[in-house]
């Protein structure tokens, strides 16, 4: 017991059973060294705990506002639109959290990523033009550059030269079309990121959106789903 740092801390926390507490009481009466250590630790705890503060009301509102009208995760979705609505909210807010200069779309300064996305959507089988298949595009301004977030009911086809990021039929893939990088996810919902930015930047955007990228899952907390 003597000089037992963990035991003294447990005693100070009141995190010991009655027998141990009684034993510590007896010991402390006769051991100046442990008494002094306990007293110093108590003062340190008091000073540290004085830094504790309540979360500002504005932060509480900011956190809460994101999840208003967002469906519960894990619930089966009848249509992609439900997930897409969530993705849009998450996209804008999460990107804002990471990139200071993110803005919601309001006209595209850089049409090339949009053109690449639409050409890719047009490569899919089916008679209808891409705009009638529910390809929904949002522009994110990441560090002054446009990054297109495209969502769709149907998967985007993997173009020639694309690199799968995992050995999985639903694996995300990376591709390059001229100056435009593409990063695509097909599971659970098709999401395509495109922009005149490096694959690394698109990967960071995906991580900021809460999308797990194989080999780049930076959350690491248990229970975080893989892409």
């Amino acid at each position, binding site marked *: 017991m003597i000089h037992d*740092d*963990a*035991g*003294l*801390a*447990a005693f*100070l*926390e009141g*995190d010991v059973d009655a027998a141990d507490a009684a034993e510590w009481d007896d010991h402390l009466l006769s051991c100046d060294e442990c008494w002094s*250590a306990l007293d*110093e*630790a*108590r*003062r*340190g*705890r*008091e*000073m*540290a*705990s*004085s*830094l*504790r*503060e*309540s*979360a*500002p009301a504005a*932060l*509480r509102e*900011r*956190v*809460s506002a*994101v*999840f208003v009208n*967002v469906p*519960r*995760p*894990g619930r089966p979705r009848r249509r992609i639109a439900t997930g897409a609505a969530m993705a849009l909210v*998450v996209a804008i*807010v*999460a990107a*804002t*959290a*990471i990139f200071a200069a993110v803005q919601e779309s309001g006209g595209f300064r850089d049409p090339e990523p949009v053109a690449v996305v639409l050409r890719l959507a047009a490569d899919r089988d089916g008679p209808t033009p891409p705009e009638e298949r529910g390809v929904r595009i949002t522009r994110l301004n990441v560090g002054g550059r446009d990054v297109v977030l495209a969502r769709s009911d149907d998967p985007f086809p993997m173009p020639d030269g694309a690199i799968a990021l995992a050995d999985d039929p639903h694996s995300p893939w990376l591709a390059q079309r001229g100056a435009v990088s593409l990063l695509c996810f097909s599971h659970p919902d098709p999401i395509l990121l495109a922009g005149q930015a490096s694959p690394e930047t698109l990967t*960071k955007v995906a*991580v*900021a959106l*809460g999308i797990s990228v194989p080999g780049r899952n*930076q*959350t*690491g*907390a*248990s*229970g*975080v*789903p893989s892409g």
Partner: protein
Amino acid sequence: MFLDSTLPHLDVVHNVARRVARDADHADDLVQETFLRAFSAFESHDRARTRSWLVAILLNTARSDGRRSRVRAGELLVADVPEHHGKDDVGDAAVAAGERAAIVAALAAIPEEQRLAIVLMDIAGLTAQEVADTLGCPRGTVLARVHRGRRKLAAHLERNGMRP
């Protein structure tokens, strides 16, 4: 519901964020991203450990964000002092702000593992077992770290004329 389970722990998450972020705005961003990440994994987490689970996500977010921005998680600013919302006692407010700044500076001076134990237990209010769950180390290790860190903190401050 997600917010019903997680929002009661906002103060805990906020307090940890304030001590690992480079400034108040960065702390708010970390909190926001923590809740977004938590939302995506909410269904699969252990409901009995929501508080320590949120803190684990926050710390991982801070680490990955620190790697991106080259700002080390745990770096603390001496000027990291909140606004005083008291009535009109400017003198007391200045003293309180000065004391907080001194404590923040002293905290920054102790070893990182001990500092983190103090942040999680004494400032955020987690139990030793919750900290052990969060950090993935034995409870006894957490208790030993917090004990040594508290003593160093007190000694450092008392050398500079502060005593609770």
